[in-house]
């Protein structure tokens, strides 16, 4: 199994600033559902639905993904970013402010907010992506994670480029014909950037934190490059069926991950394991729903259900499960050489509250699927999302608080 080198890790404040911001976006998404739920469920193209989607993708997911890259590029791939503590500040602020502006722009159709969002997110990307690509170009190795990280980062750039073009079209600055990029934007963002990054991270953290065998070599070697080809095919061939190979590859990733989990060496299942298993199940259903969409079966309900299953069921589940492992672990590793008698990592989290989050999360997805058929259920979704955000944020703050207290005790001022 590939080794990780934590001596290269940035200070914990670098990734954790992103991780602590993410639940705030989930909280806002829950509140939006409570305020404007009917419009969200009317169609995925309503201003409210686009605002909600981007609260979760450009807000919640992007914050965690950027934080994870700051941590994992040096640790997993030996790719050291230039001054991560200095770089993290503008990347974090600009991406978070940009996401809020983008959501406001979608929700209220404000031209200047679209433009400012493009500037803020664009500057964040222009600060991070070249620095990331430079760091990823240095390590001589050709590890599967390294290759997948390079592909994910390029797909991130392309996602934002396509998104910025459409935002400027919505702002009235360029022709609305550019809005035809929406399918490519979704495929690049969710599959090229999101799923490939989850795979790059998963190759390392699934065997390590879930005690499974490593991903098969044939799969880890070919998955990310094949995803590039499949996205390219869908973008070039202007027929919906051209997306089928991409859907098949995503389903293959979920199946291989479930197979790894089946072969785990440990009988006891923790919350992270359950979050990931639930995520992979949701991804398989999202893939099936996507096929129905391609053949125009099921109408608006199926389109909304695919969004629910992919974004909330897939990405938010994977991210929640990973945060519960990685945040205590990063802090424990930081404290270990600095503090005598570091508190055991397992005691940093309250496992019962984490399990309550899992239950609230699963109930939220169930309610969201119901809401695609009967919209008033959206208020239950909003309430459960607020609860989930509070539980996730609360547990992360608890871990950070415990680490700070341990440091204070060790270094009395």
């Amino acid at each position: 199994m590939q080794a990780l080198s934590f001596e290269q890790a940035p200070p914990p404040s670098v990734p954790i600033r992103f991780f602590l911001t993410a639940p705030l976006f989930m909280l806002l998404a829950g509140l939006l559902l409570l305020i404007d739920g009917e419009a969200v469920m009317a169609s995925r193209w309503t201003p409210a639905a686009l605002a909600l989607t981007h609260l979760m993708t450009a807000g919640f997911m992007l914050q965690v993904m950027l934080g994870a890259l700051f941590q994992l590029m040096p640790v997993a791939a030996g790719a050291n970013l230039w001054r991560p503590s200095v770089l993290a500040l503008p990347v974090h602020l600009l991406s978070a402010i940009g996401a809020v502006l983008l959501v406001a722009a979608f929700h209220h159709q404000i031209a200047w907010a679209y433009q400012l969002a493009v500037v803020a997110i664009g500057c964040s990307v222009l600060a991070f992506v070249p620095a990331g690509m430079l760091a990823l170009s240095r390590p001589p190795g050709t590890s599967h994670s390294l290759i997948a990280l390079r592909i994910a980062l390029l797909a991130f750039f392309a996602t934002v480029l396509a998104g910025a073009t459409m935002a400027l079209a919505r702002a009235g600055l360029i022709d609305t014909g550019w809005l035809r990029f929406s399918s490519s934007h979704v495929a690049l963002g969710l599959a090229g950037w999101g799923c490939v990054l989850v795979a790059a991270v998963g190759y390392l953290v699934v065997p390590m934190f879930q005690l499974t065998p490593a991903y098969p070599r044939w799969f880890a070697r070919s998955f990310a490059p094949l995803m590039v080809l499949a996205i390219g095919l869908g973008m070039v061939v202007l027929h919906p069926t051209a997306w089928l190979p991409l859907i098949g590859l995503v389903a293959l990733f979920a199946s291989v991950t479930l197979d790894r989990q089946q072969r785990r060496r440990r009988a006891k299942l923790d919350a992270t394991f359950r979050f990931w298993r639930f995520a992979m199940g949701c991804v398989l259903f999202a893939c099936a729903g996507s096929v129905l969409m391609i053949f125009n079966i099921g109408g608006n309900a199926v389109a909304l259900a695919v969004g629910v299953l992919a974004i909330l069921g897939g990405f938010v589940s994977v991210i929640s499960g990973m945060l519960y492992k990685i945040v205590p672990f990063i802090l424990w590793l930081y404290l270990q050489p600095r503090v005598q008698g570091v508190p055991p990592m397992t005691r940093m989290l309250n496992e019962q509250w984490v399990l309550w989050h899992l239950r609230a999360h699963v109930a939220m997805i169930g309610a969201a699927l119901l809401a695609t058929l009967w919209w008033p259920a959206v208020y239950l979704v909003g309430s459960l999302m607020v609860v989930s955000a509070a539980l996730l944020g609360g547990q992360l703050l608890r871990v950070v608080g415990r680490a700070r207290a341990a440091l204070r005790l060790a270094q009395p001022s």
Partner: protein
Amino acid sequence: MTDRLPPIVVDARRLLPPEPMERTLEALDEMQPGQEVLLMIPRQPAPLFDMLHNNGYAYTVESQPDGVFHITIRQASGD
């Protein structure tokens, strides 16, 4: 012929991070002069290697056919 104490065995094959490191550090605290700690773990624990290196321990790594690594740790000065 000197009587050597048997190694303290830390079986971390079914433990989640960072429990292997926590248990190994406990074992290193209990280790008597000349004694060794044998850690059995299904991956190469890079954070532990960093810690051992920084704290004056020597270690050897043996890869087993079943994918488990046997890491034998001793005081570097005892070599």
